């Protein structure tokens, strides 16, 4: 039997198909939880965020528009936004996130306990992104990861790193541009 696509499962969720809901949760829970852990660095908080993210996916399944991006990208955006909001509500200061070692580790390896399908999907993506991140300078990589995963603005980065605001903006922007270029090269190779 064919494996239903992500889009088909979302459509089923929107129509109240419980089998689709169960299949979607099983397919995505490790990815959702993994991203929440990467952003929050706290498994308990990540569990709350992951659960809320899946509830929101279910609640808004009918609104998903394939023309705006993949299901994975849509889900990842929801998780990331919720995780950053959770940080802010806990009033954690940017200084709490100065150490990126946990995040870099989350981007550097595949958890052995992940399902074979998750491992396979993630390895391809991981290798591409990991190679692309290596192409950035240390400062660009740090600024980009702080912005992308922890929601730091350029102003927060400039204050935390004691650098001019313009420098912080440039690091984020250049990091994004170089990452994009590297990813594009990775795709065509």
């Amino acid at each position, binding site marked *: 039997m064919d494996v239903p696509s992500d889009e088909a499962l979302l459509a089923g969720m929107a129509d109240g198909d419980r089998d689709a809901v169960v299949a979607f949760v099983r397919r995505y829970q490790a990815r959702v939880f993994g991203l929440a852990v990467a952003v929050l660095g706290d498994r308990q908080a990540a569990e709350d965020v992951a659960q809320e993210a899946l509830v929101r996916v279910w609640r808004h399944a009918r609104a998903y528009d394939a023309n705006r991006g993949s299901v994975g990208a849509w889900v990842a955006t929801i998780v990331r936004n919720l995780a950053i909001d959770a940080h802010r509500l806990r009033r954690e200061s940017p200084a709490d996130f100065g150490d990126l070692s946990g995040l870099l580790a989350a*981007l550097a390896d595949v958890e052995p306990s992940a399902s074979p399908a998750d491992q396979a999907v993630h390895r391809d993506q991981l290798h591409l992104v990991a190679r692309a991140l290596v192409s950035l300078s240390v400062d660009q990589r740090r600024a980009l990861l702080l912005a992308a995963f922890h929601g730091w603005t350029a102003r927060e980065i400039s204050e935390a790193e004691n650098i001019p605001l313009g420098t912080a903006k440039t690091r984020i922007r250049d990091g*994004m541009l170089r990452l994009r270029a590297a990813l594009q090269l990775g795709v065509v190779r």
Partner: protein
Amino acid sequence: VSPLSGAGGAGGAGEAGGLGEAGGAGAHPRDGLVELALGLSAGPDRDHVLAHVRSCAACQDELTALSGTATSLWEAARPVEPPAGFEQRVLASLDAGATHHRPRGRLLALAAALVALVALAAGVTVGWRLATGRDDRFVSEYEETLRQLGGRALAGARLVDPGGAAVGRIFVYEGESSWLYVELDEPPEDDWAIFLGDDRIGRPRAGGWGMSIDGIEADDITAVEVRDAAGGVVARTAET
């Protein structure tokens, strides 16, 4: 030509940039596009960039590409198996939500129409964020206000005309009793009506109008239109 071309690809040498680089009316908001793609911008800064993007094909393409880059990063986080029982808790939560939160009667149809109109540019929460939440005092006051009222959520969004200009506001409060309030700066002289999806839910007599929305979660109210007597759209919630 990319709006970001010349932005410095060699080691971050350039110090030009910042939101000010968009200075001229037609200038491309280079850093604004990056911040939007990364989900960092909010409020007037975000509105400014979105208004530019709506009328600039190059920036639309750039934003699409940057958003793709950002999501590539987020999707690269390694999958981690959640704790035992997580799946059961999620499914129980969904089952409970399917019965407990389902709006009743006429409002059910409204909610279904609304959900279909969620704008997805940067996830479901962006367009209705109350604020950035970075100001501790602000967050504290917000939480205290909700605590005193027994409220669960207070959200707001700008109403814009078809050209993208701000023409009003909409507020949603979710609590023991929940309500929605729409306000136009210059309401049409003729009849005007408020629509949630395809459902007309009210016909205001002045510049402001509200209704009880008990049974609908604030998070589910995602798009509202104001239409004139001929059915033309006068204003809608700002695209997210």
